Structures are given as structure tokens and as C-alpha cells.
């Protein structure tokens, strides 16, 4: 006949750890997760306006360079190409932010970044749209930011 043993401290501790491990190991529900991302938008606005106010540069809110739309296109890119193209905008973003932190012609660097973003955007028009939608998309992709930054750099 088996004897029932009372749970000792040694046997309780691992089960607690296992519970935490299980809790951290499970997938979260994506439903309503957008509310947390909206809070992240608020954080982006807070940080970026503050840094821009003090240092005249943008550290978070970019103008399309880090948009992963370029990756999600229905193209025949290999996984490695996708990985590189996914990483490059982030590296570019970080390098340019560091470069912009120097007082020498920050507006010009912003202009270059913004222009390169527009080129990327122009080149990655979704192929599954109709001609009318594509034209509207192209028109709305054009922004006046590069011109604005170039003018402010020139002056």
C-alpha cells in the first residue's frame, strides 16, 4: 500500500517554477492586443517630440524606411534576401539617427533619408491593386517632406 506523502518545501518549489514557466510559455491572445500598440504609439509621440524639441532630430517616428511593407510583397525573394531587407532599414535608421546627432547639416541628412524612403515606397507599389488604386497610391505616396527638408537645409 502506497503511503500518501505531504508536500514538502522541495516538492512545492519546482511546481511553482513550472507554473511560471508554463505561464510564460503559452501564447497570448491577439484579440484586443491593438490597444497595447496604441499605447506604444503614445510612447512614440512622447519620446520623439521631446527629443526633437531638445536635439532637433527624430529618434523614433520615421517616414517609411522601417516600414516592413517592402518585405510583405508577393515577390520571389529568398529568405536570406528578406532577412537582409528586413534588417537594412533598421540599421540605416540607427546609423542615420547617429549621424543626425552631429550638428553638421542634420537637415540635409534628413532630406536624404526622406528621399530614399520615397524611392523605396515608389518602387514597392503593391501589385494586387487595380490601375486606379495604384495611381492613387502613388500620388498619396508623394509627400512634400523631402522638398521641405531640402529648402531648410539650403537656408
Amino acid at each position, binding site marked *: 500500500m502506497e503511503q500518501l506523502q505531504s508536500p514538502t518545501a522541495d516538492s512545492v518549489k519546482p511546481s511553482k517554477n513550472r507554473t511560471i514557466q508554463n*505561464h*510564460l*510559455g*503559452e*501564447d*497570448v*491572445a*491577439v484579440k484586443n*492586443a*491593438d490597444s*497595447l*500598440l*496604441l*499605447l*506604444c*504609439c*503614445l*510612447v*512614440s*509621440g*512622447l*519620446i*520623439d*517630440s*521631446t*527629443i526633437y*524639441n*531638445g*536635439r*532637433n*532630430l527624430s*529618434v*523614433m*517616428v*520615421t*517616414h*517609411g524606411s*522601417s*516600414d*516592413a*511593407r517592402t518585405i*510583405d510583397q508577393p515577390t520571389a525573394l529568398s529568405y536570406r534576401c528578406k532577412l537582409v531587407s528586413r534588417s537594412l532599414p*533598421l540599421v540605416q*535608421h*540607427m546609423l542615420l*539617427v*547617429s549621424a543626425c*546627432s*552631429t*550638428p553638421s547639416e542634420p537637415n540635409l541628412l534628413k532630406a536624404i533619408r526622406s528621399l530614399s*524612403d520615397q524611392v523605396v*515606397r515608389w518602387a514597392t507599389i503593391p501589385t494586387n491593386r487595380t490601375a486606379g*488604386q495604384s495611381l*492613387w*497610391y502613388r500620388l*498619396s*505616396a508623394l*509627400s512634400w*517632406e523631402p522638398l521641405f527638408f531640402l529648402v531648410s537645409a539650403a537656408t
Partner: protein
Amino acid sequence: MSPIRRGTLVSSFLIQSTFILVTAAIIEAGVVDGSSPRFAQDIDWRQVIPIALLSFQSAGQMVGSRILNISEIPTVVVTSVLCDFASDPRLTDPLRANAKRNRRLLGFFGILVGAVAGGWISKCAGQIQSVLWLAGGIKLLITVSWMLWPRNRITTE
């Protein structure tokens, strides 16, 4: 290993909030000048420390939106959000019929409200660390929310 695992999201957002709080602490401690506005003529490489930390954590935030498959709110991009909003063929759909459009609009207003609030706080306080403490606190709150977030009950075989 699933990207939407609770542990992955909690650790990712914990790192992000740590980076913001470390930045705030660096400025608070006086390692980097936190007066606002400050446009120095000479190059001070210590200024790069908070910029690099904040920039790095912003990348983590964007990846978070991708792995949750809510790519319409990249959280760090304004132009593409507005562009997608304006070029949405279902722009004029009823309120509940187009969730992506609603998210884009709310995301844009989130950044706008944050920017206005951050600008005013830093202007009134004359320093940038107070906003960073606030932003770090909100990020920490998001981290705790991930810890308590309901689990996914749909299992894939």
C-alpha cells in the same frame, strides 16, 4: 517557438522599458545634458548614448507590431499610416466594418497626442528626462499587461 509567446513579448517590452528608463536615469544623473532645447555647436559624443538607446528600443516596438500581425499600426511610422489610410478603398465604410482603418486613425492620433503632450511637458519643465520617465512607466505598464494578458485558447494541430 511561437513569436507571440508571453515570455517573448514580456522580455521584449521589458528590455524596451529598461532602455527608456536607463536613458532617463543617465540624463537625471547628469551624464548627458537634459536641458531643453539645447543646440550645441560642438560635438559631444555622449549625446549619442540616449539617442542610440531610444532608437534601439523603437525598433523592438515595431517588431512587436509585426509579430502580433497588426502591421497597420507600426507605432513608429506616420507617413505610411496616413498613406494607407488615405489610399484605403474602403475608407468610407461604416464605423465597425473596417477595423484596419480605425486602427490606423487611432494610431495616428496616439502619436499626435503623445507628441503634443511630450512637447508641452518638456517645454514647461525645461528638461527632457521627465517625459522619458513617463514614457518608461507607460512601457513598463504595457509589460505588466502582457504578463496578465489572456492566453490564446485556439490551438493549432
